[in-house]
């Protein structure tokens, strides 16, 4: 049966997809449901190899709609269930994410972004930012972690399960094809040995261990506008309360910066190197990066940019992240300089070159 896994710290060198599978095992996920799409396939490949050794399960279904909804079903029975997807698959999974938002189903999605729109490329983009944060006919009541490194893929996949089961909102780990496919080193660990308590899942219904339980009727359809309004506003309040507790960001050198480099996800790695290089040259440059895109660290960003003159926003999409930034710093007079490259990676050199154009 279940082998003892991940004792102490282990330094490893592996692909991001493999990292996610290991992190899901470390988080004590019970079951994964999936449908093949590049570049997330190896999450399933590694999970299907790891899972039987640890008494865990996998189900390959007919499409991403089904992957999303079977995962919802699994979560409802009180199991830690997750799925992974990308691109057009992410589009299809938004339907289940909406049900999860409405019914407060703590589902975990791992998204390895690929090019868009349409089938586009299987390689890389940050074009699922809007979709992952706001997909569907709702208010974006979800938690989205935008990771930049393999270490973060490991850390935040574990965290995603914990946050989902704490706050009962659908939780996304938003990676990309570069993170999915490249190899790099990271430290894997058993979260409980590190003092990270794993939140225990609880059945939403169908608790077969408690035959005497009071039955539950769970729905997502309401008869009147007022009934719906109450439900949505209640979710909104819970989401707002959660937001302050879970919001995460990273910033460096913003206090005296004239120009602040603003990025998320893997592009933040190019930005941090650009920041270090430019600082070494004595330039007054800052670095800011939201780690949670939902909730967005708006207050923190506003505070960070208050003395700066320019904001260099770089993303591998045509303004999806930029719109969130503009929305969150509304009222600020700071000049925004966008570097928008949909579906294309952004290097340190490109950010540095863009910076030099500013002065």
């Amino acid at each position, binding site marked *: 049966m279940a082998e003892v896994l991940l004792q102490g710290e282990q330094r490893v060198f592996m692909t991001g997809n493999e990292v996610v599978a290991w992190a899901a095992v470390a988080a004590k996920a*019970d*079951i994964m*449901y999936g449908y093949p799409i590049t570049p997330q396939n190896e999450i399933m490949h590694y999970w299907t190899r790891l899972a039987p050794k640890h008494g865990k*399960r996998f*189900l390959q*279904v*007919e*499409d991403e*709609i*089904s992957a*999303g*909804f*079977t*995962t*919802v*079903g*699994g*979560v*409802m*029975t*009180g*199991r830690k*269930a997750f799925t992974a997807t990308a691109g057009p698959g992410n589009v299809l999974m938004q*339907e*289940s994410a909406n*049900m999860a938002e409405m*019914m407060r189903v703590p589902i975990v999605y791992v998204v390895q972004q690929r090019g868009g729109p349409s089938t586009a490329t299987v390689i890389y983009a940050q074009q699922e930012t809007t979709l992952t944060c706001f997909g569907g006919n709702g208010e974006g009541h979800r938690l989205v972690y935008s990771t930049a490194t393999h270490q973060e893929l490991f850390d935040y996949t574990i965290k995603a399960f914990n946050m989902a089961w704490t706050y009962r909102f659908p939780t996304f780990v938003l990676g990309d094809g570069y993170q999915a496919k490249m190899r790099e080193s990271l430290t894997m660990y058993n979260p409980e040995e590190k003092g990270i308590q794993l939140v225990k899942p609880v059945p939403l*219904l*169908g608790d*077969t261990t408690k*035959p*005497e*339980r009071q*039955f*539950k*009727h*769970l*729905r*997502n*359809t309401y008869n009147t506008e007022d009934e719906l309004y109450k439900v949505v506003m209640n979710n909104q309040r819970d989401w707002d309360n959660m937001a302050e507790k879970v919001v995460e960001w990273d910033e460096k050198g913003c206090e005296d910066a004239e120009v602040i480099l603003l990025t998320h996800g893997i592009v933040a790695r190019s930005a941090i190197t650009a920041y270090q290089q430019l600082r070494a040259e004595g330039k007054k440059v800052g670095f800011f990066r939201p780690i949670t895109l939902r909730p967005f660290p708006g207050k923190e960003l506003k505070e960070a940019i208050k003395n700066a003159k320019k904001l260099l926003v770089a993303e591998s999409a045509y303004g999806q992240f930029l719109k969130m930034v503009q929305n969150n710093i509304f009222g600020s007079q700071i000049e925004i300089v966008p570097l928008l490259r949909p579906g294309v990676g952004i290097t340190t050199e490109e950010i540095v070159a863009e910076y030099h154009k500013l002065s």
Partner: protein
Amino acid sequence: MQELEEDGILQPAMPSCWCQETKPHKFCPGCGHGIILKVLGEAIDELGIKDTMVFGCDIGCSLLSWDLFSIDTVQTHHGRTTPVITGMKRANSDIIGVAYMGDGGGYAIGSQHLFNAAVRNEKITILLCNNCNYGMTGGQMAPTTLPGMKTETTPYGRDVSETGYPTKGPEMVAAVAPEGAYVARGTIANVRQLKGFIKKALENQIAGRGISFVECLSSCPTNWRTNAKQTWEFVEKDMAGFFKVGELRGSEVKEG
């Protein structure tokens, strides 16, 4: 079943797994859903599976069953009840999962789920109410609308040269499901037989043999615009003439 007579007054005969507080149910007068759900309730009572069951209902008229039973229930999205119940059963095999849907949910928007659940022989029970139209949305053509039948989207009658023939769901499921499947088509015009089919379907799941699927021929006088006599004629003659009632797979399973 409860005592039929209380304080000298004849009480409606309700399965004990029906939720008393939410009765009368929400279906239109003359609708077949109530009959199907009543025999389902009786089968659940007889098998004593209320406490391990999860009932999932689809969107469309079937969603009105979301609070019908004193049983853990989840109302899902249109067409997605099959994957939700599948996911539950895969995560906790102790659950008896019943997915309840209409012909639109099973044969149109959720047809890929029904087909693939059948191919994988998911150990769940799917009950599908066939009333030849989309009832909740006001009577549009469904996959099961009979040739020549008038609906809101086929006002001059269903033209099979343009829209094809009605979907024969049990025949499809029976064709693709592996050994162990139970597949039948019953009708509200023969409740004793329908109850037997539904009970066998549940038993098939309890025994872990494979998928169980029962299509139930039902009525929709509201959208058919039929009186009682015409309604029964349509169910018993027109529908049964096209959709053959009987067991298609697993008929060797003994009745409990």
